[in-house]
C-alpha cells in the first residue's frame, strides 16, 4: 500500500495546569490503516484523540488532516472534513429512535445546509443502511435509550458510519462489552476499514492484536513506541511501562 499521510501532529501538547497530559507528540497516520493507541491509565490517550477531533484546544503544536492545518478549526468543522469521533462514554440521543440517531449524522453529510441537499427519503435510506452495517437493522424503530449497552456502542459506530468519514476515531469502544459482542465488533470495524482509516484506543489487547496494522504506545503523555503488533509485544520499554521496571 502506498503510504499516504492522512493525519499528522507536530509537537502537539496539552497541559492541564502543571499536568502534561499530552507532551509534545509527533504522530503520523496513513490512509487506510487501522492504528491502535495503547498505554497505561493516565497516559493521555483520550486527551490526545480529543485534540485530534477538536473537542479540546491544544496548548501547543499543530494538527494536519488531509494536507490541511486544522489546528484552529472547531470540532464541527473537522467533522465536516471527515474526522468522526465516537465517545468513550456512550453518547447518543437516548430519547430518539435508533434511526433518528443515525439520521442526524447522515443529514450532516447529505444535507449540510438548511436549503438544498438530499431528500428526506435519501437520508432515511442511508441511515437504514448504516444501521444494517453494524447489525442493528432490525432495531431501527427502538428507542435508543432502551437498547442494551452493547447495542448502544454499535449505534455509536453506526452514527460514525453515517458520516462516511475518512477517519473514524473509536475511544475505548469495547469497554463493557461481552466476549460475543466484542467478536462482532471486531468484524464491524474490519468492514468499516474498507472505506475509512480507523484510529482506535483500546485496553483489550486481544482486540488490538486482532485489528491493528500498527500500534502506537503512549506513556505519561509521550510517544513511547510505535510499530507492528509483533514489534510492540517484543518491545522492552513497553513491557516496562506496563509491568514496571525489571529488577
Amino acid at each position: 500500500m502506498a503510504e499516504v499521510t492522512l493525519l499528522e501532529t507536530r509537537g502537539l501538547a496539552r497541559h492541564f495546569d502543571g499536568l502534561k497530559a499530552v507532551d509534545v507528540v509527533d504522530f503520523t497516520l496513513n490512509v487506510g490503516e487501522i492504528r491502535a493507541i495503547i498505554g497505561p491509565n493516565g497516559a493521555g490517550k483520550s486527551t490526545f484523540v480529543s485534540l485530534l477531533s477538536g473537542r479540546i484546544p491544544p496548548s501547543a503544536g499543530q494538527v494536519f488532516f488531509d494536507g490541511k492545518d486544522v489546528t484552529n478549526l472547531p470540532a464541527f468543522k473537522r467533522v465536516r472534513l471527515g474526522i468522526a469521533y465516537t465517545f468513550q462514554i456512550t453518547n447518543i440521543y437516548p430519547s430518539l429512535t435508533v434511526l433518528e440517531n443515525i439520521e442526524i449524522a447522515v443529514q450532516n453529510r447529505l444535507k449540510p445546509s438548511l436549503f438544498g441537499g438530499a431528500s428526506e427519503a435519501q437520508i432515511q435510506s442511508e441511515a437504514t443502511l448504516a444501521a444494517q452495517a453494524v447489525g442493528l437493522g432490525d432495531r431501527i424503530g427502538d428507542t435508543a435509550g432502551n437498547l442494551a449497552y452493547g447495542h448502544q456502542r454499535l449505534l455509536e459506530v453506526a452514527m460514525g458510519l453515517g458520516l462516511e468519514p475518512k477517519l473514524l476515531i473509536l475511544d475505548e469502544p469495547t469497554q463493557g462489552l461481552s466476549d460475543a459482542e466484542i467478536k462482532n465488533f471486531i468484524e464491524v470495524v474490519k468492514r468499516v476499514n474498507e472505506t475509512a482509516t480507523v484510529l482506535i484506543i483500546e485496553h483489550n489487547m486481544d482486540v488490538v492484536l486482532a485489528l491493528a496494522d500498527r500500534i502506537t504506545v503512549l506513556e505519561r503523555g509521550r510517544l513511547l513506541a510505535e510499530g507492528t503488533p509483533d514489534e510492540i509485544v517484543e518491545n522492552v520499554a513497553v513491557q516496562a511501562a506496563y509491568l514496571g521496571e525489571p529488577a
Partner: protein
Amino acid sequence: MSLHSTEISSVKAAKAAEAEKGKDRFMIIHNGRLFALSLATLSVLFVLQFALSDYLVLALTRILIMSIFAMGYNMLMGYTGLLSLGHAMFFGFGLYAAGLSSYYFGTSLPVSFVIAIAASLVFSFVIGLLALRTEGVSFMIVTLMFAQAAYLATLYFSKITGGDQGMTLPTDARSFSLLGANFDMTSDVVRFNLAFGIFAVVLIFFFFVTQGPLGRLFTAVRENEPRTQMLGFDTYRVRLAAFTLSGTVCGLAGALYALMFGYIGSAFAGFHYSIEALLFTLVGGPGTLLGPLLGTGIMTMLIDRLSGITTAYLIIIGIILIVVNMWFPKGILGTIRERWVPWLK
C-alpha cells in the same frame, strides 16, 4: 447479536439502488398520523364556530391567536430546549410594528401584517445573536432582561406608543379589502375565520418544520448538544434558527392580535405575557405540535370560568401549575406521548 453478513460492496450497490428510489419518492411525509390528527383538529376547530355561542366564538378567536404565540414559544422551549422568560417582547414587537404602521402611516391591514412579520424576523435574529451567547439560567435572565428593557421602552416613549393607556386603531384600520373581498374587523365571524386561517397555516408550516430536517436538528440540540457538534453541526446556528423562527411567529401572533382587536398597549409586552406563553406550553406539552393549542384552550377557559366565581382565581392557577410541574412535567400531550402514543410529537 448476530454477525451481519452484508459486505461493504453489496452495501454500496444497495445504497445506489436506494438513492434511485429516493429520487422517485421526491418527498416523504414523516409521521403521517400526526398530520392526520392535525387536519382533524383543524376541522373540529372550524366546525366549532357553528356550534358555539357568540361569546365562545370570540373566546376561541382569542385562543387561536394566543395558541400561535404559544406555538412560537414552543418551537424554542419545547423543541430546542431553550427556556426564554422574555417572549412577550416578540409578541409586543409584532403588536407594535403592525399597530404603529397602521396608526401612523395608514398602511392597509395586510401590509401592516407583512411589515410586522418582516420586522419581527430581523428583530428576533438580532436579539438571538446576542442572547444565544448565554445558556441555561443566564439565557433565562438575559431574555428576561431584554424583555423588561423593551417593556420599559414602550412606557418611556409613550408619546408614540400610547404607553400603558394604549391606543385604539382608527376606524379606517378596522377593515380591509383583499382580492375583491371586504373584511370587517368588527365582525366576529370574519375575525374568527381569519384567525383560524392563519392558525391553520402556522400549524401546517410547523408540522413540516418539526417533522423535517430542521426540526430534527432542533431536537438533536435539545437532547444532546455536545454530540450534535461532534456530528458536524454548528449548534449556535441551529439555536439561532430556532430563536429567529420562534420570535418571528410570536411577532406574527402579536400583529394579528393588534390588527384584529384594533388596540395596542404596553401590557402586551409585559412579563405577564411571557409567563402565559410558558404556562400554556407547559400545560399542553412542550415539544408537541398540538400541545400549545390544548394548553392555551384549557388555561384560557379555566381562567375565564374561575374569574367568574372568585377574584382569587390566580391561587387556583398557581396550584395547577405546581401540580403540573410535579406530576406531569411533560404536560398533557407529553404525558400521553410517553405512556401511549409515541408519535405525538
